């Protein structure tokens, strides 16, 4: 915290308002602007706190969990509740309900395209990582795909926890540069007449892609349509399924 005035390591005086407090490290890493100090990431490469933990990932989690519990900062039952939520309650089945409703309810479609956060909130889908929703509809002219090249931003209340491929270096690195090659790996070949727009979620806005409604689905109920909406179709690396 910068609640006290930190001392610059370059001039030994209280650092100026805009300090370089790098890597969220303690106050000894503060410097006035312009002072010639080691580059931020050279300051403490050897003393990252995580190096104090066991190297095995499962043991590492257990060590942190045990430490926080012993300090009274963790309720193990709360962890179980969070896991239960994202393992069983919140997932792409939520987004699929939204898409099927968009396909069958013109008024809802208008609301969603104008204010997606409000529209999905009315269906009970609001919360962490879904605070600022925007819906983008695929058309015969434009196919849309979502990525987060900088981390793993994803609309949790509608799609749940992102799958491994979405968080992979390969997807993050490649889909902005060669989206058609990446889509081909998902079995999706777009016509040359259809433009691709790749949405890199670099802020807190979360995107839900509305896939095109497949042909031959006239007369299907919302519940039946929901079954055609895959997770990938709502990210843009897939299409809605064609009924058998």
């Amino acid at each position, binding site marked *: 915290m910068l609640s006290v005035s930190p001392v610059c390591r370059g001039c030994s005086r209280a650092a100026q308002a805009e300090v370089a407090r790098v890597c*969220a490290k303690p106050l000894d890493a503060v410097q006035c602007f312009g002072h010639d100090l080691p580059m931020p990431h050279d300051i403490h490469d050897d003393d990252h*706190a995580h190096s104090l933990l066991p190297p095995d990932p499962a043991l590492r989690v257990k060590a942190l969990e045990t*430490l926080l519990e012993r300090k009274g900062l963790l309720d193990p039952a709360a962890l179980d509740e*969070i*896991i239960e939520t994202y393992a069983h309650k919140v997932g792409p089945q939520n987004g699929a309900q939204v898409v099927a409703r968009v396909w069958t309810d013109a008024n809802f479609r208008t609301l969603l395209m104008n204010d997606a956060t409000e529209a999905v909130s009315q269906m009970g889908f609001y919360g962490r990582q879904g*605070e600022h929703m925007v819906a983008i509809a695929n058309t015969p002219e434009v196919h849309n795909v979502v990525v987060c090249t900088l981390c793993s931003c994803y609309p949790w209340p509608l799609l749940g926890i992102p799958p491994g491929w979405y968080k992979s*270096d390969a997807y993050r690195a490649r889909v902005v540069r060669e989206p058609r090659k990446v889509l081909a790996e998902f079995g999706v070949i777009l016509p040359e007449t259809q433009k691709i727009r790749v949405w890199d979620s*670099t802020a807190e806005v979360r995107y839900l892609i509305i896939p095109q409604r497949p042909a031959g689905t006239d007369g299907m109920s919302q519940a039946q349509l929901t079954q055609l909406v895959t997770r990938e179709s709502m990210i843009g690396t897939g299409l809605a399924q064609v009924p058998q």
Partner: protein
Amino acid sequence: MSRVHDMGGRFGDGAVGFEPDGEAIFVENWHARALALTLAAGGLGKWNIDISRHARECLSPKDYARFTYYEKWMAALAVLLVDSGVVTKAEMAGAEPSPSDLTDKTLRADKVAAVLASGGPSARDGAAPAFNIGDRVRTRHVARNVLVSGGHTRLPGYAAGMKGEVILSHGCHVLPDASAHRLGDRPEPLYTIAFDAADLWGEAERVGDEVTCDLWESYLEPAP
């Protein structure tokens, strides 16, 4: 300059590894514990989402590349807990833990549903947007934090110094370049900017393909 996490456009990563038959939400049990532990510890209120992203990005390139996804989360969590004074280095190394004065913030099981459902909006009141839909803008060159040398920013390197068009306007949002360094919210108008893929990569896979980024007003200037 950018860090190792800023990988958009990078060559050499190989196939994405999509499994058509699906994969478990949590491939290993400890993945689920790591996610839940991160959310629960975040509930102590000692850091925000920008600080936590910054902590992950500050992993050394060597660690960032070799750690799997949730290993990055755990490494960053350890750093955040020590840096924010929640635990000491000695405790992290195995010393007998002393009681915390933060226990009134501990996330209890009966509060989980409400906390996950309430989220943490980044929208704030602030200035009217300087740019309109359809305006041509140019992004900052180089992609860097101008408040904190070497600090966090959300302008990807591949989109730095590029001309694009404002296609959405989202109102004012917390500026991560400030928030990640505990310099306050400093809300700014946020826009979606569309770039021509041919401008970004030299040539597009297909003429007319586009990439968009969500960018804050101080990242942008009017395009000449």
